[in-house]
C-alpha cells in the first residue's frame, strides 16, 4: 500500500466529479448520484493505494463507464431538465446586472443586449455546465494544469481557425433593447426563480428543521454563486472586450 500524493488525489477527485456531473446531466436522482460518486471515489482511492491506475477501474473510456452505470439507474430526462432552472437564474441575473450597471454608468434610458454580451453569458454558462466533464481527461492527463492547457489550446485554435477562415462577426450587433421597467422586471423574476430553486433544493429534506436549514444554506450558496458569476462575467467581459478591441475584432 502506498501513500497518495496531492496530484493523485486531485486526479481521482476530478474524475469522480466528472462522472457525478455526467450523471446529473443524464438525470439521475441526487441521492443515487451521491452514493455512486462516493463508491467510485472510494474504489479509485483504494486502487491508487495498491498502485493501480484509474484506467484499471474505469477502463480506457471513462465516459462509456459513466454511461454504462447511468443506464442501470433509470435516468430521467425531466430530472436533467431541472438543471435549466439554475442556468436560467444565472443568465437572467447576468443580463439584469449588466443592464442595471450600464444604465447607471452610462445614464441612458434603455439597455441594448449586444451579441458580445450574449456570447459572454452563453460562453460562461456552457463552461460552468461542462467544465467539470474535463475531469474525464484525468485518465490520460494526470495533472489539472495539463488539462486546462489542453482546453485553452483547443479554444485558441478554434478562434484562430475562425479568424483565418475569414469569419467576420459584428459583435456590436444589438439583439434586444429595453428600458428601466423591464430591467427591474427581469431582476424581480431572477429573485423569484432563485427562491423557487432554493425551495426545490430544500424540499427533499424529511423534517421541517432540516428543510429550514437546507433552505437557509441554499439561499446563501446560491446568492454567493450568482454574485461570483456576475463578477466573473463582468470582469472577463471587460478583459475580452479590450483584448478584442486591440486585436481589431470590432472594426
Amino acid at each position: 500500500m502506498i501513500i497518495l500524493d496531492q496530484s493523485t488525489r486531485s486526479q481521482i477527485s476530478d474524475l469522480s466529479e466528472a462522472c457525478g456531473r455526467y450523471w446529473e446531466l443524464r438525470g439521475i436522482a441526487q441521492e443515487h448520484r451521491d452514493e455512486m460518486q462516493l463508491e467510485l471515489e472510494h474504489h479509485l482511492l483504494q486502487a491508487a493505494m495498491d498502485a493501480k491506475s484509474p484506467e484499471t477501474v474505469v477502463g480506457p473510456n471513462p465516459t462509456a463507464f459513466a454511461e454504462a452505470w447511468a443506464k442501470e439507474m433509470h435516468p430521467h430526462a425531466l430530472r436533467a431538465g431541472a438543471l435549466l432552472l439554475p442556468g436560467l437564474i444565472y443568465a437572467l441575473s447576468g443580463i439584469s446586472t449588466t443592464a442595471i450597471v450600464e444604465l447607471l454608468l452610462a445614464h441612458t434610458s434603455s439597455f441594448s443586449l449586444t451579441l458580445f454580451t450574449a456570447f459572454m453569458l452563453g460562453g460562461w454558462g456552457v463552461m460552468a455546465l461542462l467544465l467539470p466533464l474535463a475531469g474525464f481527461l484525468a485518465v490520460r492527463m494526470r495533472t489539472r494544469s495539463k488539462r486546462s492547457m489542453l482546453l485553452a489550446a483547443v479554444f485558441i485554435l478554434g478562434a484562430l481557425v475562425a479568424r483565418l477562415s475569414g469569419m467576420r462577426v459584428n459583435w456590436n450587433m444589438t439583439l434586444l433593447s429595453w428600458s428601466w421597467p423591464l430591467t427591474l422586471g427581469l431582476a424581480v423574476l431572477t429573485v423569484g426563480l432563485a427562491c423557487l430553486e432554493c425551495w426545490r433544493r430544500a424540499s427533499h429534506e424529511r423534517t421541517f428543521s432540516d428543510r429550514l436549514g437546507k433552505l437557509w444554506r441554499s439561499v446563501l450558496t446560491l446568492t454567493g454563486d450568482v454574485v461570483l458569476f456576475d463578477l466573473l462575467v463582468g470582469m472577463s467581459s471587460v478583459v475580452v472586450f479590450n483584448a478584442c478591441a486591440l486585436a481589431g475584432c470590432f472594426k
Partner: protein
Amino acid sequence: MEVRLTQLLRGTLDMCLLATIAQQPCYGYEMVQRLAQQGLTLVSEGSIYPLLSRLQQRGYLEGYLIPSTDGPPRKYYRLLPKGAEQLAQWQAEWNNFAQAVSQILKGAHADDNPRSVHPQPDLRPQ
C-alpha cells in the same frame, strides 16, 4: 485468448458477484479482490458497479453504508432472499451448461451416436 476470457467473464460476472456476496457481505473493491484471488481478473474493475446496480434494482441485493476509519463511508452489499433464489437457479443452469460443454470438449457425444461418426479425411501425403 484474453478477449475470449473477457467475453466468458462478461456473461457470468453477475452470477459470480452474487456468489461472492452470498459468502459474506462486502464492498466493491473487496469483491474485485476476492474475484482476483479466485483467478478472475477484470479488465475494468468498475464494470462491477453497473451490474451491482442492476442486481440491486431487481431486488437481489441490498446496499448499505458503513462508516470507515480510513476515509468516506463504504457501501456494502448483502444478499436478499430473492437473490439467493436467483443464485440457486443460475448455479443449476451453469452446472448443466458447463457439464454439456465439458462433454462436448471431451468428445463424449461421438460414442453415444455411431451414425454421427463421419469418415476422417486421409491427410497422409500421396
